[in-house]
C-alpha cells in the first residue's frame, strides 16, 4: 500500500511538472550565464569601460604572441631595419624576402578592425552625447591604431566603418588623414571641456585616467601625422602641426609622458624572442649603433652568445642559404646572435616615446613651423631624452661626436652577406649642414629612439629614406619591388578581396598604382623638401 501511494504521488508529480513547465518562458533559457551580458556589463560602466582594454592591447597586439608576430613583427619590425628573423620561414620565400604571404598579412588588417575600430565605434555610440570625454579617449586610441593600418596599405575603410549604407567603401589616404585630424579635434575639445573628469581612471592602461596627459598624447600624435604630410600636403601639415605645437596642454615633455600600454600580459616580443627564438637584432641596427659607439646598445640588445663581447645582427631578407638542409638548420646557425634586452623584460608595450616628439619638433623647426622651438636644441634633447629613457650615460659626448659613422656589416655565419655601411652621417649637429643632411640626422636618431616600435620606424623610413638601412639579401617579389627602393606597402589582404571585392577595387583606384608592394602611398612622395 505504501508503494502504491508512492507511485501515485510520482504520477501526479510527472503530470504536474509537465503542465507547469510547459508554460514557462523559453527566453529564460539558452543563455550562458557564466559569461557576461551587455546588461551585466553596465555595472560600474564596464559596458563602456571593458571595450578599451582590447583597444589598448591590440594596437600592438599582446596575445596570442603569434598574432602580433604576423601583425607587425614579420613585416614592419623587419622592414624598419630593427630586427630580423633567424629562421627563413617558408623555405626563405616569405614577407622578409618580399614574397608576401597574404595569410600572414591578414592580421595587419583584421586585428585592428576587430579590436580597435569596432570598439571605438561601440564606445562612440554609447558615450558621444552623454560622456564625450570617454569618446575622446576612444578617438585618440582609434587614431593611434588606425593610422598604422593606412600607413601599411594606403586607402582603408575608415569614415565608412560600420556604416551599412556605404558598406566597405574605402577612403583615400588623404581622406583618412583628414578624418584623423577631425577625430583628434573632437577628442581634444571633449577632454578640455571635462579636464578634471575621473570617468576613465578605472579603465586607463596608460595615464591613470588623467585627461591632460591624453591631450598631450593627442597633440603629439597630431604632430606625428602632420609631419608625415609635410611634403605631400604642406598646408594641411603646417596648419595641423602648428595646432599641435600651440595647444595649451602642450606635447609630451618628459619621459613620463610617453605612450605605453601597461598590460598584465607578457610583452609579445618576449615570447617571440625568448621562448621561440624567432627574432634577432637586424644588421642595420648593428651597423648604426656600433658605428656610433651608442651607449644605448646594451639596454636595447644583448651581446651575442655565439660571439661574446659583440653585438651581432642579421641581414634582412635572408633566403634559405646553401649549406642548410632546412629552415631549422639555418635558424640554429643564427639564433646565437644578439637578441632584445630591455624591451622584452617589461610587460609595457611602447607606442610613442617623448624623444620622438622632440625629433618631430626638430623637423617642424626645420620646416619653419611656428612654435617649434630651436631645431638643434630639440634634436639634442631628443637624444638625451632617449638616453635617460634607457638609463644610458654619456649622452653629451655622443651628441658632440662629429666623427663616428655607421659601421660596415660582417655576417659571422656567411661572408657573402657582408655589406658596407650605407651612410657617413654623424651624430653631432652642424648648423651648416644642408636641410637634407639635417633631416637624415634627425630621422636616424629618431629611429634609434623609437626602437622597438617598428611600424612608425618603417613609415618614417619610407617617407624620408632615413636611416639608410641595408637592402634585402634576396628579393623574391618577381620584379614588383625594387631592392634598393625597398618595400613601400603591403597589398590589400585576401580576406578583403574575397568578402569586399568592390571595396578593394575602389581602393586600388584610390591607390593610383598596382596593388603590390612596390606602389608608393600618398604621403610617400620620394622627396623630402
Amino acid at each position, binding site marked *: *500500500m505504501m508503494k*502504491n501511494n508512492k*507511485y501515485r504521488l*510520482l*504520477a501526479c508529480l*510527472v*503530470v504536474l*511538472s*509537465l503542465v507547469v*513547465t*510547459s508554460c*514557462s518562458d*523559453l*527566453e*529564460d*533559457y*539558452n*543563455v*550562458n*550565464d*557564466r*559569461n*557576461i*551580458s*551587455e546588461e551585466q*556589463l553596465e555595472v560600474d560602466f*564596464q559596458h563602456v569601460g*571593458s*571595450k578599451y*582594454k*582590447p583597444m589598448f592591447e591590440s594596437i600592438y597586439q599582446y*596575445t596570442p604572441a603569434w598574432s602580433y608576430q604576423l601583425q607587425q613583427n614579420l613585416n614592419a619590425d623587419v622592414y624598419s631595419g630593427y630586427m630580423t628573423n633567424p629562421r627563413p620561414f617558408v623555405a626563405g620565400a616569405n614577407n622578409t624576402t618580399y614574397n608576401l604571404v597574404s595569410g600572414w598579412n591578414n592580421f595587419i*588588417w*583584421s586585428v585592428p*578592425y*576587430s*579590436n580597435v*575600430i*569596432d570598439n571605438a*565605434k561601440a564606445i562612440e555610440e554609447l558615450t558621444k552625447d552623454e560622456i564625450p570625454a570617454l569618446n575622446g579617449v576612444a578617438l585618440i586610441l582609434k587614431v593611434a591604431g588606425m593610422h598604422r593600418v593606412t600607413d601599411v596599405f594606403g586607402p*582603408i*575603410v575608415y569614415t565608412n*566603418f*560600420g556604416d*551599412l549604407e556605404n*558598406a*566597405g567603401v574605402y577612403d583615400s589616404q588623404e581622406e583618412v588623414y583628414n578624418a584623423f585630424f577631425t577625430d583628434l579635434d573632437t577628442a581634444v575639445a571633449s577632454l578640455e571641456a571635462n579636464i578634471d573628469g575621473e570617468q576613465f581612471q578605472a579603465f586607463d592602461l596608460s595615464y591613470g585616467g588623467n585627461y591632460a596627459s591624453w591631450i598631450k598624447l593627442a597633440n603629439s600624435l597630431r604632430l606625428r601625422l602632420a609631419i608625415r604630410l609635410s611634403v605631400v600636403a604642406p598646408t594641411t601639415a603646417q596648419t595641423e602641426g602648428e595646432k599641435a605645437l600651440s595647444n595649451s596642454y602642450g606635447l609630451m615633455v618628459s619621459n613620463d609622458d610617453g605612450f605605453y600600454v601597461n598590460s*598584465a*600580459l*607578457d610583452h609579445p616580443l618576449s*615570447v617571440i624572442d625568448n*621562448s621561440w627564438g624567432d627574432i634577432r637584432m637586424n644588421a642595420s641596427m648593428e651597423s648604426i649603433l656600433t658605428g656610433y659607439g651608442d651607449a644605448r646598445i646594451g639596454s636595447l640588445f644583448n651581446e651575442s652568445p655565439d660571439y661574446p663581447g659583440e653585438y651581432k645582427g642579421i641581414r634582412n631578407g635572408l633566403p634559405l642559404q646553401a649549406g642548410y638542409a632546412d629552415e631549422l638548420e639555418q635558424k640554429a646557425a643564427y639564433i646565437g646572435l644578439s637578441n632584445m634586452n630591455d624591451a622584452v623584460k617589461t610587460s609595457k608595450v611602447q607606442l610613442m616615446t617623448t624623444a620622438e616628439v622632440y625629433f618631430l619638433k626638430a623637423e617642424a623647426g626645420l620646416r619653419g613651423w611656428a612654435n617649434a622651438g630651436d631645431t638643434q636644441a630639440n634634436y639634442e634633447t631628443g637624444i638625451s631624452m632617449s638616453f635617460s629613457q634607457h638609463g644610458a650615460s654619456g649622452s653629451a659626448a655622443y651628441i658632440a661626436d662629429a666623427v663616428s659613422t655607421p659601421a660596415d656589416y660582417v655576417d659571422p655565419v656567411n661572408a657573402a652577406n657582408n655589406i658596407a655601411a650605407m651612410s657617413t652621417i654623424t651624430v653631432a649637429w652642424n648648423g651648416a649642414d644642408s636641410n637634407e643632411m639635417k633631416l637624415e640626422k634627425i630621422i636616424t636618431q629618431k629611429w634609434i629612439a623609437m626602437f622597438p616600435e617598428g611600424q612608425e620606424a618603417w613609415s618614417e623610413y619610407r617617407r624620408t629614406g632615413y636611416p639608410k638601412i641595408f637592402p634585402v639579401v634576396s628579393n623574391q617579389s618577381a620584379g614588383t619591388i625594387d631592392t634598393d627602393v625597398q618595400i613601400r606597402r603591403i597589398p590589400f589582404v585576401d*580576406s*578583403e578581396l*574575397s*568578402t*569586399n*571585392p568592390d*571595396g578593394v577595387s575602389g581602393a586600388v583606384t584610390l591607390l593610383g598604382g598596382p596593388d603590390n608592394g612596390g606602389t608608393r602611398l600618398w604621403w610617400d612622395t620620394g622627396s623630402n623638401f
Partner: protein
Amino acid sequence: MKNNLLKKMFFAAIMLTSSVIFAQTVSGTVSDANGPLPGASIVVKGTENGTTTDFDGNYTLDNVSSEDTLVISFLGFITQEIVAGSQSVIDVVLEEDAENLDEVIVTALGIKKTRASITYAAQDIKADELNRVKQSNPINSLSGKVAGLSITKSASGVGGSVKVVLRGNSSIGNNQPLYVVDGIPLSNPTAGQPTNTFGDINGGNVDGGDALSLINPDDIESMTVLKGASASALYGSAGLNGVILITTKKGKAGSFKVDFSSNLTVDSPAYMMDFNSEAEDNIDGFLETGYTNINSLAISGGSEKAQTFFSYSNSFADGVMPTNSLKQHTISVRETAKLFNDKLTVNASVMASTQKIKNRPISGLYFNPLVGVYSFDSPGEKLRDYEIFEEYDPGRNIMAQRWFRGTSDIEQNPYWITNRNASEDINNKFLGSLNLGYEINDWLSLTARGTYDKSMFQFERKIYATTEATLAPANGRYIVTEQDITQLYGDFLVNINKQLSEKVSLNAIVGTSTTRTTNESFVGDSGTNGGLQFANVFSYQNFNGNPSVNFTQNSLESRTNSVFVSATVGYADMLFLDVTGRNDWSSTLPSENNSFFYPSVGLTGVISEMTDLGDKISFAKVRASYAEVGSGFLPDQINPNRPIIFGGGGVGQDPIRPFPGSTPKPERQKSFEIGTEWRFLNNRYGIDIGYYNTKTTDQYYAFATSVAVIGAPQAYLNSGEISNQGVEATIYATPIQNDDFSWTSTLNFATNKNEIVKIYDGQQLDGLIEPEFFTLSPKGVNTFGSYLVEGGSFGDIYAQVVRRDSNGYPVVDNGTVVMDDDNLVDGLTKVGNANPDFTLGWNNSFNYKNFTLDFLIDGKFGGETMSMTEAIVEGISNNSARETANANVTVVDLNGNQSTLTAQEYYGKVGGRNGFTGEYVYSATNVRLAEFALGYNFNLGDDSFFRRIKASVVGSNLFFFYKDAPHDPNVSLSTGNALQGVDVLGLPSSRSIGLNINLTF
C-alpha cells in the same frame, strides 16, 4: 479506502463469473511469446462488435454473451477463435503464423506496430546477434548488420566513441542519429572531438567519449533502426538524422532466471603501414598485446503483477598502447508492476555506469607517443633503450626528459609521454526513468513518462616539467576539462486504439513532451605560458593568476516544448495510412522564429492481403512516405554573452553572431522514400528494397565577412542545400532448414549519393560575397582539408597533389617537386571522398546439432582515405619499407627530361604533414571478416542446475580479404564532421580473438 475498492472489485468479479448466458464484459490481454501485442483485433464472430488491444495488449469488450465466439486476430499471427463461456477474463497468446511471419516492431515514441503496417524502412537487430561478438560500445555491433547505417569506430581504442550516420551526411552541424531507450530520447553527448590535423596543443586530439559506451550491451533486448525522417518525424528536430531505438530487457513473469556471461578477447595491433625491419622491431617492442574482459550478470523474475530485472556488468581492458587501460562498471534495475486491477502499469528503471580510462590513445602530432615510436632512427640504438625516460638534471635538481636528440613540439620520448604527459578520463552516466500507463477504457489509455539522464565526462592531463616548451612551460602544465550534461524529459500521451468498423481500425496518439537540457562545462588549464608556480604540482592552488591561464566555466540550458499527433488508419489489414504532425517550440531559436512544424505522411499496401499471389509468395507490400523535419540551434548561438578572460584579461572576443539584419531560422529537411518487401516460400526467402531522397536546406553557416564592414570576420546566415539519395536492400534467406542443420543468411546493401547542390543562396549582402567553399576540416598548416564545394559531396578529401606529365611521371624541377595547381580549393586539390560508393554486409548463421557458427563479412566499396601517418613518417624519418628498399622513382623536369630519384629522396621530398599528401591517398575499398563466432551449446539434463551453457570462440576484425590503405579505413579520428578519410597517427586498428561463455540458471 483502497481495501474497500478491492473488496468491491472482488464481489463484482464473483457476480460476473456467477452469471450465466447474460451479456457480460470480457477483458484480457493479447500477447505473443515476447510480450503484449498492441492493436490486435477482438471481434465477436458474425457481428460488428469488436475492439483492438491497447498499447499494453489489453482489451475490454462489452455485450459478449457466453455463447459468443471471440475472433482474436493480428497480422502475422494465427487467428484464434474462443468461445466466451462464462469467463470474464480471456487472455490470449497468439502464435506466429509460419505462413505469414511478421514481427511487431517498435516505432517512434515506443509505439508498437506490425511490420506490415509501417510506411518506411526500419530494421531490427536482436540481442543474440548484437552480443555474439561483444563490443564494449554496443553500437559498434550494428556495423554491417543494417542497410544504410554507417558505423565508424574512433581511433581511440577501447571505450572510444562511435560515429553513426544513417543515409549519408546531411548537415554541417550534427549528423548523428537520435538514440531512444524504451521510447524515451537518450542524451548522447560526445564530449569534444578532434578537429585539427596537427593535433590540439591543449592536451592533444582527444576523443571525449560518448554516453553509448557506458551502456551494458547485455541490457539490450533489441535495437530498431528507423532510417529516414518519415520514421522519426515524431521526434521533431532530434530525429532529423534517423533514430536508433533500444529496447532493454525486463523481468518476465515466471520463474527466477540468472544469466551470466563472460567474454575475454586478446587484442593485437594489426593494421599499419609498412615499416622497415628496424622500425618494425621498435614498434613491436613498444606496442603491447591488449586484452578486453567483459563480464555481466543478469537476474530476472517476477509474478504476473510485478517483475524485476537486475544486471551488473564490468569491463577491464588493457590497450595495445602501453599504460592505456579501462575499467567500467554498470548496474541496472528495472521494476514493472500492474496496479489497480491492472489498470495502471508502472515501469521504473535506474541505470548507473562509471568508466575510468587511463591514457586514452590520441591522434595527431601533439602528445602522441606514436610520433617518436614511428620515427625513431637513432643509429645503433633501440627504442627500448629509452624506456628509462628521465635522467637527473643537477641544474634544476629535477628528473628531466631523456631522448636521443632534442625534443620538438611533435616529438618527445614516447615513454615520457605515456608516463609524464599521462591522461585520465572518468566518465559516468546515470539514467532513471518512470513510465506510467493507465487504461481508461477498452480504447483509450494514458501514458506519462519521465527521465532524468545525466552524463559526466572528466578529463585530466598532468604534464611534467621538461616536457617540450611549446606544449608546456618550464614548471609543467595541468589540464582538466569537465562536462556535465543533464537531460530532463517528460511526455504525456493519450492513446486511442479503436476498431471503427469490422474493416477500419484507428491507432492514434496525441501527446505533449518537454525536454530540458543543461550542459555545464569547465576547463582549467595552466596553459603554455608560466601557468604553474611550482614544478610538477598539479592542483589549482598552484596556478598563477595570469590571463594565459584558462579557467572557464560554461553553462548552457535549452528547452524544447512539443505537441504531436500520430494516427494510423488501417483498412482490412491491407492498407495503412500513417499521418504524423509535431510542433516544437525551441529556446535555441530567436523568439520570433521559435516555432516549427514537422509533418509526415505515409501509405502502405499489403499486396498479399489484397490479392492471391500464389503459394510461392508468402507476403508482399509496397510503401511510400514523405516527411519534413528541421533542426534548431545550439544553445547560446543566437545572442551569445561575451566570454570573460581569467586573470584580469577582461572581456574576450565577441562570439560569432547572426549576420546583421538577418533572423535565423531552423535548418529544414524534406525526405521522400518508397520501398517494397517480398517474402517467398514460407518466408524462407525475402527481400526488402527501398529508395530515398532527402534535401536539406537553410543550413546555418558561419560565413566569412569583411571586418571593415561588420567589424567581425564571420557571421551566421541560413543558406545552402545538400541532397542525399540512395538505395537500400536487405536480402535474407534460410537455404537449409532441418532438424540437425540450418543456415540463415542476410545480405545488407546500401548506396548513397550525396551532392552539395549549393552552399550559398545568393543573398546579396554588403561585406559578404559568394563563398567558394565551406570548410569541414581546415587545412591549417597541413595539407589535408575537407570542404563543401558546390557540385562536390560531403566528405571530399583535398590534398596537395604532385604535377605529373602525360606518362604519369612526377614533375620535379631543380630538386623541387612541382605542385599541380589546377582547380584548387583553399590551395588544395580534390583527391577523393571518405564515404564508400556502396556497402555490403553479409551475415551468416549455421546451426548443426549443438554447434553454432556465425560470421559477418563487411565490405565497403569505393571511397578514398589518406595516410598522413605515412606522409609524416616519410617526411621526418626514413623508416618506411619503401624508403629503405633500393627502389627508384622516375621523375621528369619541366622540359620533360627524365631522371631518377631514390625512393628515399623522392618520399623525403613529398612526405610530411604539409607535403604532397596526394601521394598518400589510397582506395578505401575493403572487405573484412568482421565477426566470427563458433559456439557449442552443452546438452543439459532436465535436472541440471543450469538451464543453458554456451561456450564460443569469437573473433573480430580478423583479417581483410582486400584492403589497399596502410591503415584500417573503418576507423576514424573523430566522430564529428571533421577529420574524415584521413589517418594522422591514429592508434592502429586491432585484431581480437577470444572466448565467450554464457550461463543461464
